[in-house]
């Protein structure tokens, strides 16, 4: 079974995911969410660990641009994911297995759409 872990910032993305639940929007059950204080605090090391533990996909969900509660956390996360994708490529892991997504706290629909799309994308890759 596909296993995806998502790190969601507690100010925006996690609230949107929470809202998605309250609105009874459906998203794939392969996705496990971990709430984090800020998307910028998700270490590349942690992402690597997730892949080492065998997760098929990892995403980091943060606030929309310029709306980070800690000023620049989301832009750090965005940059980190960009750099990390290249490192994953060297390690024979498809960069498409990692994604950064901006979700505002009210945009539950965006999360549900992203979750479905990301799940489909990971399913489309050969199994790890």
């Amino acid at each position, binding site marked *: 079974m596909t296993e995806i872990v998502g790190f969601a910032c507690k100010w925006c993305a996690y609230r949107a995911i929470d809202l998605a639940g309250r609105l009874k929007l459906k998203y794939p059950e392969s996705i496990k969410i971990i709430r984090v204080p800020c998307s910028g605090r998700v270490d590349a090391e942690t992402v690597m*660990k997730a892949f080492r533990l065998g997760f098929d996909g990892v995403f980091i969900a943060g606030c929309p641009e310029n709306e980070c509660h800690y000023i620049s956390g989301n832009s750090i996360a965005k940059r980190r994911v960009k750099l990390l994708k290249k490192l994953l490529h060297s390690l024979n892991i498809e960069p498409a297995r990692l994604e950064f997504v901006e979700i505002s706290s009210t945009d539950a629909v965006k999360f549900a759409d992203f979750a479905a799309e990301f799940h489909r994308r990971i399913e489309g890759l050969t199994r790890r």
Partner: protein
Amino acid sequence: MAFYLASGCMGCEMAVVDSLHRIFDGFESFEIVWSVPMFTSSRYDELDSIPDGHIDVTIIEGGVGTGEVKDIVTKLRKKSKKIIALGTCAVFGGVPALAAFHTVDEITGEVFSKTRPEKQVVHDGKYILKLPEMEIQKPLDEVVGVDHYLPGCPPKPEVIVDLFSNLKNLKEKWIISGKSVCSFCPRSPVNSGETQASASDVERVVSESEENACLLYEGVLCSGFITIGDCGADCLKIDVPCRGCYGPLPDVEDAGGKMIDVLSIVLTDEAAEALLSEYREFGKIFYIYRRSLLKGGEP
């Protein structure tokens, strides 16, 4: 005692020789029962006649890169009470562990091209010569248990002197100070009170950097902050960025990940783009001297 040069370059054993005049007295209380290829002229078959657990301390330099080395270190583990991994190759896999980014076939193909040697040849009609089976280089502790780790490429002679004077009562698993290269670096921002700067470009060598400015803040790829600093930051003192030859500190789980963690904070978007476009791939830059955990096992 026993010494063995596994898949290493002999640099670490030369470092032992460098410090020999200072550790010579220490050798009096030890007898070297088996050593390949330095100090004595032991043979592989002599190892079999040594009883299990007879050797007090075995010092192994280099990782495990062939089936032959694997057999010998496994035997040495049985015969020894303690095994010390000397040097970065033995501790982390070292530069040869970059082989993990390729397959054995790719590497032998690159080196020997079409004239690949026979695996076994018969010489003079009676001597059978076998080529050792090449493997992707691993650190020592992926093959046998290691009691003490002394990284360095090679370790400084002073550290080796310390090792030999304490050989009988070693306690710590890691024979290191536990500090990073930054702790010894004259350019460390901690010394100057400099706050974080944003680099707008990325380089691998120092060009016209400000004197005593942190290289990382200038956008030079310096891995001093994750690297064991027992070298005393010698490279930084002559304006060379740290490449990480002592290997990452024991609490660094993934060296490449840690590098990216810091680079994504220090670099601006433009610098990150420059890094992405200038380097074809990151693996061999960030995992030089240390084996990536993710790649573990078959590629």
